[in-house]
């Protein structure tokens, strides 16, 4: 049951990405193109998508986290780390450059696989390679006493 539920949630999430335009890299790049404000080429619509998603999730979390626990599973796994280390800036900075180069972040890139395009498949393979390298490096450094990003469950 939980498995079917997670498939349906992935599907709803993906439909949101497809219908809002987040799965279209050209639209994402037009959103990131603040330099085009002067020429009317800036597309601010994805800011509303983001704001809408935050509004729904904010309200939903308020309601959900008051409950004793999730429907399936014994407890809520909410990230607890509050440390502002170099990684919380360096990681997103690296991620943002990749996002700006192509226009894909991880969710839309995976959804794009369903479009069947070769470019999306190339991007996803490279993305997974990057993820595995980061994870490997993080685990190595965690041996020397630095917390691994994946231990913090923020992702």
């Amino acid at each position: 049951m939980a498995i079917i539920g997670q498939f349906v949630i992935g599907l709803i999430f993906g439909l949101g990405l497809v219908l809002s335009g987040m799965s279209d890299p050209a639209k994402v790049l037009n959103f990131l193109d603040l330099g085009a404000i002067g020429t009317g080429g800036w597309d601010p619509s994805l800011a509303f998508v983001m704001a809408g998603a935050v509004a729904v999730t904010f309200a939903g979390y308020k309601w959900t986290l008051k409950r004793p626990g999730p429907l399936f599973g014994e407890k809520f796994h909410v990230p607890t780390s509050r440390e502002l280390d170099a990684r919380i800036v360096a990681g997103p900075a690296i991620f943002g450059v990749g996002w700006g180069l192509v226009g894909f972040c991880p969710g839309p890139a995976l959804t794009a696989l369903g479009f069947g395009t070769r470019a999306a498949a190339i991007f996803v393979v490279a993305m997974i390679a990057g993820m595995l390298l980061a994870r490997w490096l993080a685990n190595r450094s965690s041996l020397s006493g630095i917390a691994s990003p994946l231990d913090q469950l923020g992702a």
Partner: protein
Amino acid sequence: MLLMALTGRIAGVSGIAARLFPPYDDAELAGRLAFVAGLIAAPVVVLLTTGQLPTQTIQANGSILVLGGFLVGFGSVWGSGCTSGHGVCGISRLSVRSFVATITFMAAGFATVFVTRHLG
């Protein structure tokens, strides 16, 4: 939000995707595979219900695709989250880390597009 209600976890795509591969630190693999399968099925469902796919234009090619994909993958795991985990779920929890992360990746995205479109 639905994922939290159902399984008690954050719907962060980078975390879910990275944990599809070993080493596994929990027994949630099947659920993560199901979530990703749902993501991939979404455009197919759109195609079947409306008869056409929405536009998707990927301007990057070759080495830029590989470089961009690698940076997105590396950065999202190194920074413990991406647009969904930090930008949506984290900000919704009023996490300071996620505010910092979101401002940083937005700024980096704006800067990168500025360089490639207006200085290149």
